């Protein structure tokens, strides 16, 4: 019997680029990467998202919670996340928002909850992403290109730990039952 398990898609957005990570619930990474979109062309993103949604058919999409009080994303990035959420909803994908600050706390259980430690925790969970680990940056330097990928991977990683897929399944069943 070959039943393809439902996969989870994690997306993180930063200025001019988007990181994505597709994971099977058993912890097998299907795809990951960073897509640049200079000049904020939404068509580039739409093309990538269409491929991810059609090819992998994710059941759950994890995005950053833009409504959370600790969210530090710019207005443009917030708008971008809302657009992605809309595109996913059209394709009947469950969208779950996770706060980046809380994700960091979950990942860095014994260390200081910052992006570098969260990236290290993700790297230890998925050894294939170790090559993408960004070097320690100085205070005057901008965020590394790969940080957005590790952020997306962190969302996906934490979603499997929290068993969000199963919770959402139950929630959907309840909704159907109530209707």
């Amino acid at each position: 019997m070959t039943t393809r398990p439902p996969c989870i898609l994690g997306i993180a957005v930063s200025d001019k680029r988007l990181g994505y990570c597709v994971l099977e619930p058993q912890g097998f990474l299907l795809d990951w990467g960073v897509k640049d979109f200079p000049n904020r062309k939404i068509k580039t993103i739409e093309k990538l998202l269409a491929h991810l949604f059609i090819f992998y058919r994710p059941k759950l999409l994890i995005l950053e919670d833009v409504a959370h009080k600790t969210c530090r994303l710019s207005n443009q990035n917030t708008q971008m996340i809302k657009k992605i959420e809309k595109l996913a909803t059209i394709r009947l994908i469950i969208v779950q928002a996770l706060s980046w600050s809380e994700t960091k706390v979950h990942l860095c259980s014994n260390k200081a909850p910052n992006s570098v430690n969260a990236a290290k925790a993700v790297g230890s969970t998925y050894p294939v992403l170790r090559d993408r680990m960004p070097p320690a940056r100085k205070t005057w330097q901008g965020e590394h290109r790969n940080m957005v990928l590790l952020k997306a991977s962190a969302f996906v990683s934490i979603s499997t730990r929290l068993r969000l897929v199963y919770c959402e399944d139950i929630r959907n069943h309840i909704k159907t039952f109530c209707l």
Partner: protein
Amino acid sequence: MQLGQFSFAQVQLTPPQMFNYIKAHRRNWGLTQKELGYILGFDNNVRICQLELGKKTPTFSEAIIFELLFDKAPSRMFPDIYHETTEMLNQRLEPLEDYFNEQKQTQHTQTIKRRLHEVRKELTQINSHRI
């Protein structure tokens, strides 16, 4: 019902994008498309790119190579192709079962009918598990 009505071309086997695990396994191994293409016997990455995107179906020898490399049976490596094939087979077996019902009932035809029924039962079970 005539068996001559069936043709392989009637059933579209390959939709535009068939999911497979080639890219996932290749990237987990840390291979490039060109390197995997070399393993399959090609000089460039074109064939691997087509297979990864699900635009082409793998040949039998390619499926065996993937199984040996990644230790995953073709049915698990190419789940969409597997399900499409089972669906196609189920569609084709249904009229065949009717055809044998119309034929003169001998021990031979009854054995075939029983076997066809068993296979169809299994195929229906497989397709019901599809996402």
